[in-house]
């Protein structure tokens, strides 16, 4: 059953077609990666799913309900959480307070939100740093915080925007393990990623975008050998 269905999505910016007739499904409990060269339209699709802009054509259906055109806070209320490519912690607040903000979406009362937040920090191995100001965290920890915060809102689907950017290989592996664990617990994940290491390790389904169109989809191993994919990444005369 598709939790998220993207159907014939199109979006143009001042005459430039960023996304053109893109369609794909993310099944419940799935773990899908959107890949493609820069400018392929991945972030635009993401932002449409997250409510940052509305599509020009097409629709996005989440859990049987159309969500295209909804605003970001409504998308969150519907059950979709997201992280940002360049992390956006609430720098002046403590790590715990950051997550409480997210938790308040699920539990309007502060004491309960606090308990919920603590639980999530435990899960993401940040409990020891709960009282530190978010601005003092290292990049890998900031990324965990961003995930924790989004998780606190109780999403069914998590959108991860280039979560591995800027991380060293070991840090990347650690974060991959976190996502795998979350997915095993029932969370559906859709991620944009350039770091192939993470894509191959994590994704069970991959969708490849190029010039705003879907050019391939399937399991990672198949997609990586697809000639169309190779051509767009490596140029015409490339070989496996």
């Amino acid at each position, binding site marked *: 059953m598709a939790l998220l269905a993207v159907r014939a999505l199109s979006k143009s910016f001042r005459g430039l077609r960023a996304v053109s007739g893109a369609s794909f499904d993310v099944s419940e409990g799935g773990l899908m990666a959107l890949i493609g060269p820069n400018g392929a339209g991945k972030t635009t699709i993401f932002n449409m799913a997250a409510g940052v802009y509305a599509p020009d054509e097409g629709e996005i259906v989440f859990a049987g309900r159309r969500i295209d055109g909804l605003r970001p806070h409504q998308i*969150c209320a519907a059950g979709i959480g997201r992280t940002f490519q360049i992390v956006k912690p609430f720098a*002046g607040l403590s790590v715990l307070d950051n997550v409480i903000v997210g938790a308040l979406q699920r539990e309007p009362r502060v004491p309960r939100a606090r308990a919920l937040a603590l639980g999530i920090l435990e899960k993401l191995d940040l409990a020891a740093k709960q009282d530190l100001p978010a601005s003092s965290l290292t990049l890998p920890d900031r990324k965990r915080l961003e995930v924790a915060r989004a998780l606190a809102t109780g999403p069914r689907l998590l959108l991860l925007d280039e979560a591995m950017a800027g991380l060293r290989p070991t840090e990347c592996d650690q974060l991959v393990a976190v996502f795998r664990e979350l997915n095993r617990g029932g969370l559906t994940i859709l991620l944009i990623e350039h770091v192939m290491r993470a894509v191959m390790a994590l994704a069970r389904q991959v969708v490849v975008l190029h010039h705003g169109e879907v050019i391939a989809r399937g399991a990672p191993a198949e997609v990586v050998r697809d000639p169309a994919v190779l051509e767009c990444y490596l140029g015409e005369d490339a070989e496996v």
Partner: protein
Amino acid sequence: MRAGALLAVLAAALVALPLAANSYFLSVATLVLYFAYTGQAWNVMMGFAGQLSLGHSLYVGLGAYAAAALFTKFGVGPWAGMWLAMALCVAAGVAIGLLAFRFGISGVYFALLTIAFAEFTRIGFDHIGWLGGPGGLFLKIEGRKTFDLANLRGGQTMFYYVMLALAAGAFALCAWLLRSRAGYYWRAIREDEEAARALGINTFRWKLLAVAISAAMTSLAGVFFAFYYNNLFPEQIFHISQSIEIILGPIVGGIGTLFGPILGAAMLTALADALNNLVAAMGWDIPGVKQVFYGVILLLVVVFVPNGIWPPLAKRLGLGRGS
């Protein structure tokens, strides 16, 4: 619980003050509390929700004129009049907020918008003959010896306690707000509005709420102003210097903190008063000397202690964050 103990001592001292102090000292103390109060009110919008308003004199003025007009024209006392004052200011604040936030105005532009509304109103009131125009609106002063709480006619001590109650109320309200869901959401909006939206926060509504609360609180300061000083001039009460005086306390003391506005107001008022006396004693009674000193102090604070004086002080005293 050190913060609690400190607070209790402070509260006791403030309540007992009139017993020990003379009328002049009480008037200075009342002024400190006035600016501590308006500073707290402004802080809700700026320190909590991150919206810089440089036109708060609008709410002081509207509140003052509303209550004063009801009293002088219709004989309605301040305790009833204050409701109209609050309603009027909330309407004005929400109108400004609605317009600004709907059109995505923020930062410098928002601040300029607030200034423009205050200035527009100032000049407008100069032309409202019914409210006295530039000549001013006056309340009758019925002898300072009476104690008429219902109509706020009385001596310095009465006004001191009224202001103390207001300031204490504001402090309690802000403390409660800060620890509530609103407090968390406002601080999130202040830190990063886009990230806040992604966490389900309807930033438009919450910002409007901050503006409304801030405006309502400030309107009461206006009501007090009207009945304390008994005269209102558009040039004075809506003037941009009023708006600036309001924000000085929180900025010097520490934006977004609870004690910041109080500390800032206390320091600045004490400083201004000391300067007044110094200047008079030295015979330097040239107009402008006091303001130059004031400006220099402000400059020094903003250059060297940009987050205000309270945060480093709180650290020294071992008090937790968020106070």
